[in-house]
């Protein structure tokens, strides 16, 4: 379990992380969400001890990262897939990492096999595509067979096949009982993978809840369905391009499809419905609303202060989000 308590980090004038507290629970996929610049990467760097916090503490199963006996056996982290020396072969890159934690040499070949890079193991990483670099980075996280895995925006810039691969990989890791902590600025990405959500904006905690709770909080267009045959309907919804999750009261919450589509699907698959209700916005819209509010609040708050260059990106971000929100509402 990762415990973050009262974490703050300042870079010059900019408060990147502001009094952040949350837990990452074992055996779950925890989505770490926030718009670009919200402080997700900074938080992950602080967890790994790459940067030092100005205040607060982080422990991993009760210990600071730097004092873990064998860090790679506890935590596997991928922050930046391109953070490798391009002149080194994939094999040697993994081998030099494995050696620091006294991991056996054969493990290098095993993780290369797992991510499908065996054929290019002896090639220098300079020529790797982003997708291949991501696989190499994931191979590195698996070297120590850790209980906790951390990924920072793992699908950024990947093609659809790469996204699918990473998504399934994370699911498989969680299914094995590992803790997966994964950041994204796209709610739609988390909808498919995360059990638990930690949402931040401008370095502050906005939400720390289960995916179901998050859905329950949001307002607008999703479809609630009560049915005695939930498994069949979940499958049908997924095939139709939507997604369905169990809510706390035993009903299904369908997103990505409108009520009529869900009704038709149920009819086609012979699924009996006891309830079909239009309820809420998509998670994406709920997330946008949540984070946009935080940005608006911050922007208003900053009006009282002398304007500086540091505030400028916040304004741009607000505009960009406003536009995005407009599109989402169509």
């Amino acid at each position, binding site marked *: 379990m990762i415990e973050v308590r009262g974490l703050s980090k300042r870079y010059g004038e900019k408060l990147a992380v502001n009094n952040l507290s949350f837990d990452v629970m074992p055996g779950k996929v925890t989505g770490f969400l926030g718009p670009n610049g919200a402080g997700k990467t900074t938080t992950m760097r602080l967890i790994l001890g790459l940067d030092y916090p100005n205040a607060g503490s982080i422990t991993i199963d009760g210990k600071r990262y730097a004092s873990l006996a064998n*860090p790679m056996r506890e935590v596997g982290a991928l922050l930046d897939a391109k953070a*490798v020396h*391009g*002149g*080194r072969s994939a094999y*040697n890159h993994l081998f030099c990492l494995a050696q620091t934690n006294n991991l056996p040499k054969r493990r290098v070949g095993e993780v290369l096999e797992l991510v499908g890079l065996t054929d290019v193991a002896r090639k220098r990483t300079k020529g790797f595509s982003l997708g291949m670099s991501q696989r190499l980075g994931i191979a590195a996280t698996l070297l120590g067979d850790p209980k906790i895995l951390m990924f920072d925006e793992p699908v950024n810039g990947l093609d659809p096949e790469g996204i699918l691969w990473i998504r399934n990989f994370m699911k498989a890791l969680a299914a094995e009982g590992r803790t997966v902590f994964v950041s994204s600025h796209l709610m739609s990405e988390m909808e498919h993978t995360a059990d638990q959500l930690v949402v931040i904006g401008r370095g502050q905690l906005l939400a720390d809840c289960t995916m179901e709770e998050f859905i329950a909080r949001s307002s607008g267009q999703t479809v609630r369905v009560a049915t005695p045959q939930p498994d069949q309907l979940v499958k049908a919804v997924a095939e139709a391009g939507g997604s369905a999750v169990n809510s706390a009261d035993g009903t299904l919450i369908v997103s990505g499809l409108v009520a009529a589509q869900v009704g038709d699907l149920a009819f086609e698959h012979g699924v009996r419905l006891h309830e079909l209700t239009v309820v809420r916005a998509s998670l994406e819209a709920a997330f946008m609303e949540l984070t946009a509010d935080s940005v608006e609040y911050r922007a208003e708050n900053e009006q009282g202060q002398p304007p500086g260059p540091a505030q400028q990106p916040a304004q741009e971000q607000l505009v960009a989000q406003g536009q995005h929100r407009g599109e989402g509402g169509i």
Partner: protein
Amino acid sequence: MRKGSIAAKGGSDMAAVTTTQAPVLPPPSGRAGFGGTLRSEFTKIRSVRSTYWTLLVLLAISIGIGAAICAGTAANWDQASAADRATFDATQVSIAGLFYLGQLVIVVFGAIVLTAEYSTGMIRTSLTAMPRRVTVYVAKALVFAVVALVVTLIAAFIAFFLGQALLASTHANASLSGHDVLRAVIGSALYVTMCGLFAFAAGAIFRHTAATITSIIGLLFVIPILAHLLPSSWYNDIARWLPDSAGGAITATVAPQDSHLFSPWGQFTVFAVYTAILLIVGGILFRRRDA
């Protein structure tokens, strides 16, 4: 990205991945520490081509320049004055390529040990694998120093023997058993290695290749030249405190010792103390700063 290479669960669903196929890791044998980090740093240094290119250039320059000077001297020996012959230092001349130009190469090599990790971002991956930074820093410095010392010793001895063979016709050639000769040959390798460690430490301070190399060349090469422009009474007072004075002092075997300098090993100690201070400052910054 190749579909066929994905480890597929059951084989039918190409995107379903499992990580449990790998055999279970043996339990840890202890705490990750200095030994593993040392092996890791050795793997790093031997697994990039730049290491081999740099060391090859070092050998070529050290041996080639030493040989060229020796061959030139031998060819013109007849025209040399008696005074020139009396002060001719066959040992120092044969290894001049190493301690004048080889140090430039080793400075670059020493600097990039750390700065290349910053420019590529590898440092974040390295420090995630081994977060105990002092361990990483010391392991890096040690691996670099050993590799540099081995290669510079090889360069020094080859340059020395080749140079003496080329000087044989002058009968002014030196032998290893000669007065101070072994000290000069080994000392040249130690001095050049120390230059590399100096640059390594500067790399930890600047974390940027160009800034590191520029400042080290300034300290080791430009400041001594500027110092020579000072009135000689001033220069004589400060010469012994210049870092590069160690190079000339430790490789000299014939010319009377400059009375303004310390003994060869004393002069070397001055440089070693500077290097140690810089290494400590670099280590403190490496430990304290955000990576």
